């Protein structure tokens, strides 16, 4: 990288915006940026575009929270309906609270090595599907399982310092689906 006369490559700009540069690389990059309005404009506009197209982690959390609340309200209404009618109802609901499908982990701060997803068994479950997404809601990995735990393959790269969401859906023999709801963890190293 030539500090003053050569413009920064797209790869370098992306690395800077994603904070993937070493201190030395960053300093050289910023040295160029301070002197080059064109590259600065590229960084400024790309940051603005990314902010627009990528929902922030906070927004994702709010969406997840709203979804969870809606599920709970729906479940509550369903229970009330059952109580009112005093008769069983048959639904093909996707639910969390009434399914008994519970995510055990990972949650909170975790290390990347040996990361294993564990959830409770669901009576009558035929299969489980796990989905892992990053803070931008982009899928990182998904897999099907018949057991109630699965290890993250070593080939799936997770970023240190980033948050991830995961969910397990179970398909039961009666055709209903059940979900653990979204769970969050952060990779600390």
């Amino acid at each position, binding site marked *: 990288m030539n500090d003053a006369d050569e413009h920064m490559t797209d790869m370098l700009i992306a690395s800077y915006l994603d904070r993937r540069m070493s201190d030395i690389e960053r300093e050289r990059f910023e040295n160029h940026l301070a002197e080059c309005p064109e590259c600065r404009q590229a960084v400024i506009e790309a940051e603005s*575009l990314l902010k627009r197209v990528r929902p922030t982690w906070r927004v994702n959390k709010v969406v997840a929270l709203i979804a969870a609340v809606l599920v709970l309200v729906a479940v509550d209404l369903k229970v009330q309906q059952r109580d009112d009618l005093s008769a069983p109802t048959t639904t093909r609901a996707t639910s969390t609270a009434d399914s008994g499908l519970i995510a055990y982990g990972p949650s909170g701060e975790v290390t990347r090595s040996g990361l294993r997803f564990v959830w409770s068994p669901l009576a009558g479950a035929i299969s489980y599907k796990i989905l892992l997404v990053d803070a931008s809601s982009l899928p990182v990995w998904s897999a099907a399982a018949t057991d109630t735990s699965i290890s993250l393959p070593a080939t799936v790269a997770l970023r240190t310092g980033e948050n991830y969401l995961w969910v397990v859906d179970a398909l039961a023999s009666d055709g209903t689906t059940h979900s653990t709801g979204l769970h969050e963890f952060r990779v600390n190293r």
Partner: protein
Amino acid sequence: MGAAAPFELSQLLRAVDSSSQQAAWEDLIARHTRLLLAVSRSFNGGHDEAMERYTYILDKLREDDFRRLRTFDETSGARFSTWLTVTARRLCLDHLRALYGRQRESAQPNRIYPLRSIRRALADSIGPEVDVERVIDEQSPSLIAQTVVVERDEALRAALVQLKSRERLLLALRYEDDLSAARIARIIGLPTPFHVYRQLNTILEKLRLSLESRGIEGVDG
């Protein structure tokens, strides 16, 4: 730790036949259409112009057996979507330049910073003293006042080049690009806008001391 290339990109670049390559290409575009459209629409013009840019981006990404896509370096750790945003924006600029020609860039061999804005910030940080520039603007410039400005700007330039890269970048983003502290914080990775303000104040204080050490008492000359 490096970010893995998206599955569709790996599939595309490793495809052994044209049908699987086409399928992977369609998957890749489907996944990033929202992003590419956002970049296309971020430039002036209506729907037709945006779609023209979108098509141009796709054509260029396909060109020469996906030459551009092959430059994505997953070992850099950068996300593919970040790289794609930067690349798509650059392609849109290329498209505009092809249509309307390159905008003449201002030749400023001695441009380092918008000195006037920095002087103003320094003056604001010191207090409401007489500003020579204003005096010159409002009255007919005297030779003495002009000389003072020239000397002061030379001293300021000399002080600026002594700053660290990040300090000069902060000044450029704030006083040249006129960005808010919140945007600067996001761009350079500071936790809050308050960190930006604090660092800017420190830099301005450093500049003031540097000017004083060169015999210039206050920016108002």
